[in-house]
């Protein structure tokens, strides 16, 4: 059975390209993040992170530190 535990999903208020650019350096340089993207075209502004190491709480802290709202998307 396929396992999707490495796909971490969050509801955020990262609403624009500018907002995304604020987070870009932090997320890009994190070696535990294989890939990430934000859906700027949908109402939940979902941050999608591929990581085999990180836990949700760690990402939440990372994003909140930059001044953005971030909660686990269930």
């Amino acid at each position, binding site marked *: 059975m396929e396992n999707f535990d490495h*796909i971490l999903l969050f509801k955020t208020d990262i609403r624009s390209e500018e907002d995304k650019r604020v987070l870009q350096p932090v997320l890009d340089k994190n070696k535990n993040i294989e890939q990430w993207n934000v859906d700027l075209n949908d*109402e*939940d502004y979902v941050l999608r992170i591929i990581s085999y190491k990180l836990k949700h709480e760690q990402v939440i802290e990372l994003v909140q530190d930059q001044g953005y709202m971030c909660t686990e998307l269930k």
Partner: protein
Amino acid sequence: MRARDIDKENLVKQKAIEIIGKGGFESFSVNKLAKACGISVATIYIYYKDKHDLLSQLATEHGHLMGQSMLHNFDPEASFEDGLRQQGENRYRYMTDNPVISLFYEQLRTSPYQEQFLATFKADAYEPFSKFNENIVARGEVRDMPLEIYWSVAFAPLYALVKFNNEGKSIGGKPFKMNDKMLWEAFDLVVKGLKK
């Protein structure tokens, strides 16, 4: 732990085209889709990177589906009448078997996803249809003419009837249901009009 669920995936695709068919791309959101499917928003983001990814895949897949349905039993070497008849039948069945798909395609046509749809559709269908169109002119069955004129005469009557059928009404709101007899009656007129 989340596992891949083919039934859920198919439900997501089906509901997506229903929502878009009814209200257009503007009315579509992942949140709305999740509610319509009775699943979490998160489940959708497991399968798709984002909304754009979902819509791209949908467009690509449908280009392929439509291409395949139009080619069913179609022989590019067939006579004009036989080949056109098969094309007409295929399009008619595809659109009336699933009216939601027709509405979706209408929305797709004016969306940024139309290109992706056409790319896969053409990959399947361009060659066989081009060959057929060349053959019927070469054989002298049909006069050479701009493709748009040929297409409009060949298929617009069918599409108009199917649209009436799927909406349940025709001119001035008159109740209407299409049947095979009407299909072939219109078709006979089309053949008469196009044959040299």
